């Protein structure tokens, strides 16, 4: 432990160690967040806040349909903007919100690719209209399986836009809210995460480096020594050391 603290103390002087530390902290932080997410999800499921809700495709009252014609599990879009709005009164009677972390669609297109399948959501009780800023696009998990990951907060409205073409025909097997996620699925990094992994630790290291250097600088004379002067000084010291 002592050794570890000593090692951590050296990051103030050693840039390489500082960068490595930042990467390690970021990676560890990610792992901790994932584990916390799993734990929080587990607790919420135990308390009943988060429930896996499976809505069969033939259900006629779970969604209010706009520009969509339904015959059992078969749906046909009547315009370029078909919508399926989740009926909270049917899914969660007496509650104005639901915890929805994930929406999974089991949907098979019949005549064409549905295109921009997306899910809109409302995060506030006073949001009157769905906002294009509050939407997520599908990740195709397998053939005919589309999943949407939502922010983990309370949802006051969910709307599925199943396609962008008039005449689009599809068979909706089921819609699953909060389908449990496997550990490998949770650990699989996304592209934005990979970018963050590359950049955030480096930027954090820059900030820490600035703080450490600012602490070392004399209170007066803000310009201090230039990098060139510092290097010259250290070279002189080394040479002196060699001479003695």
């Amino acid at each position, binding site marked *: 432990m002592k050794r570890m603290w000593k090692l951590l103390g050296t990051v103030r002087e050693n*840039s390489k160690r500082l960068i490595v530390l930042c990467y390690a902290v970021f990676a560890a932080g990610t792992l901790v967040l994932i584990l916390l997410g799993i734990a929080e999800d587990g607790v919420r499921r135990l308390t009943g806040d988060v429930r896996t809700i499976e809505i069969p495709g033939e259900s006629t009252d779970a969604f209010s349909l706009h520009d969509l014609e339904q015959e059992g599990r078969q749906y046909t879009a009547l315009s370029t903007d078909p919508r399926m709005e989740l009926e909270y009164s049917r899914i969660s009677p007496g509650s104005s919100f639901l915890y929805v972390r994930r929406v999974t669609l089991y949907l098979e297109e019949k005549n064409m*690719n549905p*295109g921009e399948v997306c899910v809109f959501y409302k995060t506030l009780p006073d949001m009157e209209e769905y906002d294009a800023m509050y939407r997520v*696009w599908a990740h195709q998990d397998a053939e005919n399986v589309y999943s949407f990951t939502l922010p983990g907060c309370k949802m006051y409205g969910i709307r599925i836009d199943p396609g962008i073409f008039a005449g689009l025909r599809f068979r909706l097997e089921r819609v699953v809210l909060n389908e449990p996620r496997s550990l490998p699925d949770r650990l699989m990094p996304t592209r*934005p995460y990979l970018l963050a992994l590359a*950049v955030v630790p480096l*930027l954090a*290291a820059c*900030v820490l480096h600035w703080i450490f250097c600012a602490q070392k600088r004399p209170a007066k004379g803000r310009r201090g020594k230039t990098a060139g*002067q510092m290097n010259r000084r250290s070279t002189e010291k080394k040479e002196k050391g060699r001479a003695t």
Partner: protein
Amino acid sequence: MAAFIEILITLAALLALCLFVHVKTGLASGAAPLAALCGTMIWYSVLGSVHLLLLAGFLWFAAALAAAVWLWRHRKMLRWREILSPAFVFFVLASLAVLVLFAARRPVFNEWDEFSFWGIAAKVVKTENQLYTFHPGEMRATTFVPGLIMLDYAFQFLGGAFAPWKVYAAYDILYFAIFAAAFSMLRRRQWYLAVPAAAVLTLTPFLMTVYQRDIYVCNVYLNAYADIPMGLLFGAGLVLYFAPRKKTPAVVCSALLAITATCIAKDMGFALCLIAAAIVCFDLLFLEKEDVPFFCLKGLWGKLCWCASLVTAPVAAFLGWAAHMAVVLDMNRFDVGGAENMGMVQMVATGLCELVGIGRTEKFTQIMQSMWQALYSTRVTMFSLGGPQTRLGRLLNGSGMIVILVILSILLAAFLLGDRRMKLRVAWASLWSTLGFAAFYIFTGFTYVYVFKDGFGYQLGDYNRYIYPYYIGWFILAVSMLCASLKNTAPGGWGALFLLVLCGGCIWRANAFLQPQLTVLDYPESVYLERREQEAAAAAAKKHLTEDDRIFLVSLAPFGLEWFQYYYEFYPDVFVDYSFGCGPDFTPETVRMPEALPKFFTEEQVAYFSTQPFTGEVWCEYLRASGCTAVFMDEWTGSFVNDYGYLFSDGLKSGAQLYRIVDTGTQMRFVPAGEEAVS
């Protein structure tokens, strides 16, 4: 996978050239990729203009191979600590990342001008192995300068098939080379400056072009238009010169290459490259105290020769392309045409006269007033706070004026943090770059007055796209000068803090305007859905067609974009007739315009087809005269079926897209492809 390996080899060849340039000339390793890429653009453009494009490619790779061999033989000379500077490492990693991303996701062209020029031209050049001016086919625009298309070709040279994602990769690699050059003066021990500088620079194309939180995919880093590369190249010439403290002949020469590359990136690049050349020349003549020999000429004569070269090279590029246009296309480059049908010199002279009040017209006054108003009221960038209706939003509105203030603030910081020499340099460059902006802005106003049609001119159409190239280049220059000033300051000072705050601010604005799912990083595949369907439809049709076929395209969608898209898709396997440019105007009452008829038609044919209502019979006569062998149906309406359905053997009910033209001489019928034998 093969395409990925091909482009990886090209990148490796480029890196070999970069290292060779670095070792032989002493140019910073971070600046060498930009110098090599600008040299590549010029090399391919020059040889392409004289019909030696294939040779240019072979020689380029031969030079890269020779450089690699030379480097291997002199590997002990390589000082890896110096080579692996933050800028060089950034360039290599960012380029590799973009190659992996694009090779995996394979984006395709999706914007109008990519089909009318920037994408199709690259495809034509790759297919024909010659410049698009020599064999343009049915390309509607052929007069644009070739620099960026030649850069695409350099990255397409290896491999048999054209891949659109390689075009995007080539552009992005150029961007990263420019960003790397901007902080190439920083060494490894200054990594804490290089990281925020790289982040700010990488965000620059977003910061300067996105002005609202959009609900559609933002195509920055995913687009083949020339506006952003031109702006970045404008900055490239400046950063190559201003980044290193010591101005060696190699430094000035690399700046010269970038300035010339700006000139051949887009027509407007000529104005920008002259401004860049002037800023560099004024610094070289009035501030640079050390000698910059021009071959054996030293002192003032050497500098004067460099200045002459900095101006002559882009002018020569401009005149060279004018000569090429005159010889190959039989067109006059100096004739800018447009609303007033003026020559270029006449346009500038008239504009200047009107500017000082001589013969000022009402149109000039109105448009110039709009330009002035747009400078402080039109949102063009991410540098805004609050909604447009709020007081804060009206004040910090992301307009040109706010951008100018941001850029001048960065330059002021560079001035305050620099040593005496740097202060002079920053102040001098700030003065000339500000005056340069004024000149560029007024010149853009002239184009609205004299070139664009009245409606477009009065409304300042595409205002931000014409203006932001200057902001991009200017911003890159400011960040580069800040890095140069900070290089000699102590770590932990105000300068480093300023850069960190700037970086934080840029990330904050980018985060406010962009969602990862709507950027190059993580765009949804559905953005290319319609294009993928077009690809599949064209591929299916090609199975029934040969290169001797000529297809007539029917697409009644508005604007006629589909013709360009399908021309691109069918090229080079099947020839697509211009088909009157498609569009919804396809009725038996329509009278066709003579410009839309094939060039090989006789005068009598043109006179006939441009006066007859386009009935079914006339359409059949047109198909017979133009040599069309098939009809490809993209989008049609019920009234089209009523008017022309009788010509189709299935009455357009079978859902087929490709129809063979079966002509008995007296009667013509369109039969679904594959069923003509039965017919």
